[in-house]
């Protein structure tokens, strides 16, 4: 029912009032619109897949269907070049990205969940002030303080090498702090929807708060933990500015910093290699997104924004 009405609305916008009301016009219009959108959205994707398998590897010679391919090995020319080029430590970059994002995700979810439980279940003086403060703080993206963050790691690094500039420890610390506010809020919102009677009865039965949290609440809030995990993981994986400032060694770069610097050099000639690397890096993330799109949409509307 609602769908029909809304569709009528959509056709109305499309027709700009004038044209006839026959449904076939609307259908044709819809199909054309969708086809244009699909072309716009998918052409770059198809093009990069084609580039990855073009043996010539340079942008000038790229054809849509790879030409003169006689063996599987030839089809994988760009991949072989990518893996064997000593100046492009692709797997190190992949590993760095996955490690930094993975550790950040696990720690963020753990710390934010515990904080959110406390905000959701306890009443204490200063609670409201703390909540408002975290909300206000998280509206300023931490890249605005990039200079201060850089100088701070510089200063701290002289005493604690683990968190110095050019370390993954320092980068993870910065990521953890940067996303904490918004994720605590996201989780608290969900925690509030879990009826209090559940944990109250457990407390009456003699469970401690920690037991209640771990054995009762955590299983109930798994959906929001999943949402936050995905958003944090993908967000961290995509982050560029702070990673670029903090990590200076080629071997320590994350994938995004590595790809950016790789491309800055000889782009048109290394197009195929870049395409191969992009394909490897993007495929898992895209599959993750598509398979979990329902969760992600929920998380997006709750406040996290990519674009």
């Amino acid at each position: 029912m609602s769908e029909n009405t809304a569709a009528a609305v959509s056709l109305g916008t499309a027709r700009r009032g004038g044209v006839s009301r026959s449904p076939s016009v609307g259908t044709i219009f819809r199909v054309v619109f969708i086809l244009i959108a699909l072309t716009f959205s998918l052409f770059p994707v198809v093009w990069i897949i084609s580039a990855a398998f073009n043996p010539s590897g340079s942008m000038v010679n790229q054809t849509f269907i790879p030409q003169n391919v006689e063996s599987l090995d030839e089809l994988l020319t760009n991949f072989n070049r990518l893996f064997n080029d000593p100046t492009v430590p692709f797997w190190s970059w992949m590993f760095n990205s996955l490690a930094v994002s993975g550790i950040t995700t696990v720690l963020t979810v753990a710390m934010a969940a515990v904080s959110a439980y406390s905000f959701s279940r306890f009443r204490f003086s200063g609670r409201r002030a703390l909540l408002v403060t975290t909300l206000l703080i998280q509206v300023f993206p931490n890249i605005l303080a990039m200079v201060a963050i850089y100088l701070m790691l510089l200063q701290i690094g002289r005493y604690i090498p683990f968190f110095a500039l050019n370390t993954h420890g320092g980068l993870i610390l910065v990521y953890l702090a940067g996303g904490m506010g918004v994720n605590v809020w996201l989780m608290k919102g969900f925690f509030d929807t879990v009826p209090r009677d559940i944990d109250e009865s457990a407390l009456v039965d003699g469970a401690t708060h920690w037991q209640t949290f771990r054995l009762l609440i955590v299983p109930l809030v798994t959906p929001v933990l999943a949402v936050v995990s995905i958003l944090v993981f993908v967000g961290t994986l995509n982050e560029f500015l702070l990673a670029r400032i903090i990590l200076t060694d080629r071997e320590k770069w994350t994938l995004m910093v590595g790809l950016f610097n790789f491309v800055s050099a000889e782009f048109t000639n290394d197009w195929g290699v870049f395409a191969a690397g992009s394909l490897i890096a993007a495929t898992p993330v895209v599959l993750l997104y598509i398979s979990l799109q329902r969760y992600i949409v929920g998380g997006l509307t709750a406040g996290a924004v990519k674009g």
Partner: protein
Amino acid sequence: MSASSLASASAGGKSAGAGGSPPAPSAPPASVSTLNYLVRLLLLGVINAGVLVFGVTLINDGNAFLGGTIILTTLLLSVVLLRNALKPMRWMVPSLALIALLVVYPMFYTLYVSFTNYSDGHRHTKNEALAMMAAEKFLPEGAVSYEWNVYRREGAAEDDASAYALLLTDEAGGSFFAAQNTALETVSAGDPPEAFSGYLLLSGGDRFRALQVIQAMQFGPADAPIGIQSRSAAGEFQQRWVFDAARDVLMDRETGAEYPADNAAGEFRAASGGTAPLGFWVPTGFENYSRLFTSPVLRGPLVQVFGWTVMFAFFSVVTSFALGLGMALVMNKPFPGIRIVRSLLIIPYAIPGMISILIWRGMLNLNVGVINTTLENLFGWAPPWSVDPAWAKIAIIMVNLWLTYPYFMLICSGALQAIPTSIYEAAEVDGATAWEKFWKLTLPLLLVAVGPLLVASFTYNFNNYLLIEAMFQGGPPIPGTSAPPVGYTDNLISYTFRYAFAAGGTRDYGFASAIAVVIFLIVGALTLFQFRFTKRLEEIGENV
């Protein structure tokens, strides 16, 4: 509702037992909790002591703000951990520590740095700069005090610098053996021995070759090292830069020049005008801000950068919201294969942004990119994307549209489903056309739900560094700007980045921080506007 009972239950460790819920058996004996408390106290004491030492070290080295913040944060969190009334906050100690130290402190520190001249040449505090310069040694001319002979550890390779040692003979005939980083060892007078504690004397050609290795090296104790001055003479190194704290003057012992400290400019400047190799950073008041707003070299680009930042954010949101909404409306009626189409359409949003942008950058390459070669073939002309300011901006907005519209499609799809059908039925009864229903019902209702996200998206794109940098690195450059060069597609955040971190340029942290503070203010204003939209702040008071 049940909040009050929980509140009392959680208000304190022991009152949880007494306050009602679990009856006697689970309440721990007093002695256990006392022991527990003591252990906690001890642990915290150890941690606090460590942090205190660290903080004081930072303060002594001139980083008073950081040291102070770390100490203060630790003390506050210790109070949280010890006071039972604050027990619920114990759950958040790690989060709060992180937010305090790595989010809140950097904000204030940005503000502070924006009032200093922290930059290349002024990268250290005065104490740090003096300490670094004090490490520089020189060999005074003429102060010959030793004749030298060189020894090498038995069996060591010729190029192993660490294997060399000197035998020094002073004018009175006393001999000393000087290995590296050890005190001088007195040797009985007379001709130099052929071998001394595992070292062998080098002479003739060996001695000459050894000179190549050891001529710039330091021997003997690290605090008063000795070096080779000539083919036969050695002398004691001296500290080159000596600071006279009483007169606040830095002296160059090598040249005899004096460099009085200029504490307003953060330099040691000689009367002749030369400066010592290292300056230090000092507060300079509003200098960065007045440069930002009054310097004609900066003002022109800044106005352009600011205008484009707003324009980019605005058009990004409007275009991707429009297309996203359009797609959501089109996709609102089920058709065969809708799930596959929807999955395909969100692919651009799922691909890591950096990768998508670089793909577009390749496709928009002027000479060999697929888009331009195709257009050339079809029309004999293609837009000069990366060299023309206007086309560069269009390219960026187009790429952002590609990246972002699936997001708005997802959001709008959800919001459309939530609009109750009864409204449309009522409108139809009143004879509204489809056009009117869209403008008067769908869009306003949608904006209520999506409005805050539009503002959030505006804020995000206001600070979109990734797209600007990965696409054209801010280019094409604005003529007349150099070191760092500023481009027509630079936005405020990439402009900040260029002043603080651009390769090749001077790193001017103070100035970059001043720009960042301006952005903070703008984002703050935007957020106020957004809160008006959501009334989220008021909700906090009510619902929780």
